[in-house]
């Protein structure tokens, strides 16, 4: 079961130019809004026509500009979940689910609808109209409707964005359950990196219509290949960098020299570290030689229910108010232990947590 995509399509302010291959593991497509994510899904579903390229699902060619193949959406057997679900308002839940089963005899339509109702936990709601459902129930109805046609691939366009926060966990669990039993290519588009990480195995980062990164999600989050991917995957601390002859790396924005666990093969242009990897040391370092420990001052902070984000200024350079070098994220327990200590504190940028990026 594979979905192969290699397409180009000119959009208003950039060209969507994407090539990838999806297999049975769910693939998250992460990108800022307007990066071309939805257009990509629409091209695969057959709702938009790429300018050129090829789309193949298993052994069926769905689109091939050279061979002038363009299978219409209704023959692609690709289930699509729209951002706002696109449920038919004049049909009940059961009628919505059965819409794609038109070609089957009546009793089979009913049997398949009933089994999907059970699978998506919609029992008892069959005769309701979409308007009378909660957001989560609407989403499950749309999912059941898409699965009813036994699609060979599933496309989900921002499946959680229209939901209240407290519903997302529940719907995410439903999606994970669906993916686990689906075992066919499933693509999920989102602008939320945590959603992308939780729901996908593979990750594709899309930036202005191009693939900025594609691979196993853990690897991309651990070692973003470019500063753009680092930013899109939520890295808060990125600085232009230059390699020094002594093997250290100069972080230009942070005005400090840092050591990496491993020197990169190509000369780094940027260096980054995730906010929760910054560590504050309790006492003076055992030896003066401990690398990457830098005095810092708190410029300002912002509080979330369980964590504190600290904005740091480094090296005695008392930064102007509001202007910080680094962002650190610590749990409140740790903050409680540190908050009354005299500044400067000492922050450690662990060599194994730092990553260098060639562009």
């Amino acid at each position, binding site marked *: 079961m594979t979905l192969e995509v290699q397409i180009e399509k000119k959009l208003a302010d950039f060209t969507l130019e994407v090539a990838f291959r999806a297999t049975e593991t769910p693939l998250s497509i992460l990108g800022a809004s307007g990066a071309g994510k939805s257009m990509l899904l629409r091209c695969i579903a057959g709702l938009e026509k790429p300018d050129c390229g090829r789309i193949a699902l298993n052994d069926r060619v769905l689109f091939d500009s050279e061979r002038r193949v363009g299978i219409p959406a209704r023959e692609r057997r690709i289930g699509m979940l729209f951002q*706002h679900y696109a449920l038919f308002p*004049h049909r009940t839940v059961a009628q919505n689910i059965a819409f794609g089963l038109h070609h089957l005899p009546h009793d089979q339509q009913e049997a398949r609808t009933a089994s999907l109702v059970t699978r998506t936990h919609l029992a008892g709601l069959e005769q309701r109209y979409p308007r009378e459902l909660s957001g989560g129930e609407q989403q499950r109805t749309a999912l059941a409707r898409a699965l009813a046609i036994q699609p060979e691939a599933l496309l989900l366009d921002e499946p959680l964005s229209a939901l209240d926060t407290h519903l997302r966990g529940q719907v995410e669990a439903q999606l994970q359950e669906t993916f686990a039993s689906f075992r066919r290519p499933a693509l999920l588009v989102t602008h939320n990196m945590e959603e992308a990480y939780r729901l996908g195995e593979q990750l594709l980062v899309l930036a202005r219509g191009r693939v900025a990164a594609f691979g196993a999600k853990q690897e991309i989050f651990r070692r973003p290949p470019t500063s753009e991917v680092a930013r899109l995957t939520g890295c808060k601390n990125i600085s232009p960098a230059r390699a020094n002859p002594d093997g250290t790396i100069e972080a230009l924005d942070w005005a400090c020299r840092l050591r990496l666990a491993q020197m990169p093969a190509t000369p780094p242009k940027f260096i980054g570290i995730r906010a929760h990897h910054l560590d504050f040391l309790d006492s003076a370092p055992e030896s003066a030689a401990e690398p990457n420990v830098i005095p810092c001052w708190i410029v300002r902070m912002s509080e979330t229910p369980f964590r504190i984000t600290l904005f740091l200024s480094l090296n005695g350079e008392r930064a102007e108010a509001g202007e910080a070098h680094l962002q650190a994220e610590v749990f409140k327990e740790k903050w409680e232990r540190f908050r009354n200590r005299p500044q400067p504190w000492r922050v450690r940028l662990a060599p194994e947590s730092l990553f260098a990026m060639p562009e």
Partner: protein
Amino acid sequence: MDWSPLLISLATSLAATAVTLVAGLAAAAWRQNRAGAGAALVDGIFILPLVLPPTVVGFLLLLLFGRNGPLGKLLLRFDATVVFSWPATVIAATVVAFPLMYITARAALEQVDPHLLQAARTLGASEARIFREVALPLAWPGVLAGTILSFARALGEFGATLMLAGNIPGKTETIPIAIYFAVEANEIQRAMAWCAVDVGISIALLGGLYYWTHAQRLRRERWGQH
């Protein structure tokens, strides 16, 4: 009293509305996925009878269906003539009512969320089925309003009908034409009677439309559309 104008008017309006409904829906559906200069020109032609004086429409139809007109010649080959016959009243009423149906149906179809049509496509439905089972049910209130407007317009048609169908009592004499010739012949009683009939039909139509849209609103609230 001779009731034939009422029967002729109702038969003409019903026939014209039926033709208009089908043709207007087909034209609106055709126009839906098209853009560009060609489609805009077609739009202009479809809407033209609404802005032209009915006498101009009638005269153009006379040129088209007359003995020397292209359609008239064609019909002559089958030994048929349209001018000054009952079908002429239907043709005249259809042509003047068509723009109302076309405009309302198009507006109603455009109101339907395109994502619903796209969802239906991904679910394997043919375009015909999508139109029948998704677009039309959702656009139906607008389409019905257009149907009633078309019927009312057909019922009130005078100028083009007189030009193309003339005034043949018992054959092409509709209520508006009967009123005109009654007044001309100074038969005020007859004119007033027909006016009362016309007002009665119109009030019944509008009242029916009001009650129907009210009931429909209640139902659509359940669908979540207003």
